């Protein structure tokens, strides 16, 4: 099973590398290949289409000004399930693509325990065991996996309607669908913030697919060490010990 998934992913990655390019300049490291970037932006496109068409259904008295984008309320409602289906399909492919680097490790548990220090800015350095993805990224990834399953099941129930699945199935699905949407809406603000102005230099990972070495060792030291064989965190400590760098 997993080998079939790996073979599929490898084929897809190679095929997309033939279509697109992975340019890595001097002082940069390759982070995301074409296939990953393509999936990311298709997921983003369908996420926002579904989000904006969904706003008009969630609270029309507040968000009805979103619906003209889709040709009015009824059309927004009719298109919303198709946007959602696109989101689930592309995110499903991304989940298969990322299943290995997103696997939870003890380092991620430690990262999550240290979350308040990271958010408050007390801890400027990433822990030296932060790999390709940190605990927060993995938590968001698995939240979206779970949320997408909820979306898909409840979405099909809401799509087919009360006359197929019964009144109570719809009434309950409606709540679960909303909760999943609200969690993801809160998450998307954090995701966009951290990938743009919150941690500058991140955005190009999803545009050209490459990041600067400085970015890599700052935010993902273990991954940097794995790729380059160097350990700047250790080097930094060593330099401090020897008095080359003043203690903060």
């Amino acid at each position, binding site marked *: 099973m997993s080998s079939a998934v790996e073979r599929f992913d490898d084929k897809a990655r190679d095929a997309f590398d033939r279509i697109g390019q992975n340019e890595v300049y001097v002082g940069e490291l390759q982070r995301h290949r074409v296939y990953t970037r393509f999936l990311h932006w298709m997921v983003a496109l369908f996420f926002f289409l579904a989000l904006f068409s969904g706003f*008009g*259904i*969630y*609270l*029309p*008295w*507040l968000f*009805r000004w979103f619906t003209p984008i889709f040709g009015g*309320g*009824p*059309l*927004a*409602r*009719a298109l919303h399930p198709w946007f959602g289906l696109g989101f689930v399909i592309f995110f499903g492919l991304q989940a298969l693509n990322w299943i290995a680097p997103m696997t939870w490790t003890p380092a991620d548990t430690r990262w999550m325990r240290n979350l308040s220090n990271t*958010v*408050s*800015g007390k801890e*400027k350095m990433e822990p030296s065991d932060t790999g390709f993805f940190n605990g927060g990224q993995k938590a968001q990834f698995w939240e979206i996996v779970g949320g997408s399953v909820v979306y898909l099941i409840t979405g099909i129930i809401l799509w087919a*309607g*009360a*006359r197929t699945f019964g*009144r*109570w199935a*719809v*009434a*309950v699905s*409606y*709540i679960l669908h*909303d*909760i999943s949407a*609200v969690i993801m*809406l*809160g*998450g*998307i*603000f*954090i995701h*966009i*913030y951290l990938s743009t*102005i*919150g*941690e*500058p*230099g991140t955005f190009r990972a999803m545009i050209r697919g490459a990041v*600067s*070495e*400085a*970015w890599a*060792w*700052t*935010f993902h030291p273990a991954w940097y060490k794995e790729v380059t*064989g*160097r350990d*700047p965190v250790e*080097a*930094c400590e*060593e*330099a401090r010990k020897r008095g*080359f*760098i003043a203690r903060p």
Partner: protein
Amino acid sequence: MSDRKTLQVRQISGHSGPSAGFDMQRDPEVCKLIDTTICIGCKACEVACVEWNDMPFSPTTFDNTYQTMPETRWNFWNLIKFNEHQREDGTIQWLMRKDQCMHCADPGCLRACPADGAIVQYTNGIVDFQQENCIGCEFCVSGCPYDIPKFNPATKKVYKCTLCSDRVGGGLEPACIKACPTGCLKFGTKDDMKYVAEERAKQLRENFGFKDAGVYDPQSIGGTHVVYVLHDAQNPERYGGLPKNPVIPWSYTVWKWLFKPVLGTFALFGLVGVLLHYVTVGPRLPQPEPQLKKEGSDVQRS
């Protein structure tokens, strides 16, 4: 009831504010009384409904009964349901019930509807769909205990019986009432119709041997503006699935008016939160990689 004041709006779906002009004047609540004990199943009301509301001929389906079609349609709002009930002594009771919107005092469709102004309840009790505001989400279908709202895939909007709000607003009775030849259908104020219905039920109990005869006006949804006189009010399910205690899913009362706006605001705090984080804590910048120099040689870069 002979003036236009009977169509004063009481409630609006998806609308948080008060309804303009509500409670400014006294309005009698209207009511349709359906006495199932003297319905002869002639379907004149079905025809009158289609005629008045200018709906096209609707193809009928034959299922070996007198019933015109299995259920109401988006353009067929009034259907007589024929049901055969076998009594304990083996005799057959042929039950006929005119099925249409019940115009609930606490309408599940209006509770479930998220669209501002797509469903309104007038002070006279009529629950009416305003299709120009409908977004076709079909939540009203799950809110309704009677399976009344029907979706039209062509217009992507939902339709149902209006209790002829256009006629009632003009001081006339609904079209079905006008067409009924037996007096099975009556129309008036809720108080009057309840009185007539209770008297009729009493008559059935005392003079005709229907011990369980009674009035169907379920209080679980605050009563309805269409009430039935039934031979057996203990078992309304026999009349084609009339629920004894109709309920609105709690999600449409608790969830919609409390958690939805609260959670929506909560999600927007995510936006406020990251902006505040940016201006207070600030971004984390990539740092240049420290170079460990040992006696002038760059040992780390191997």
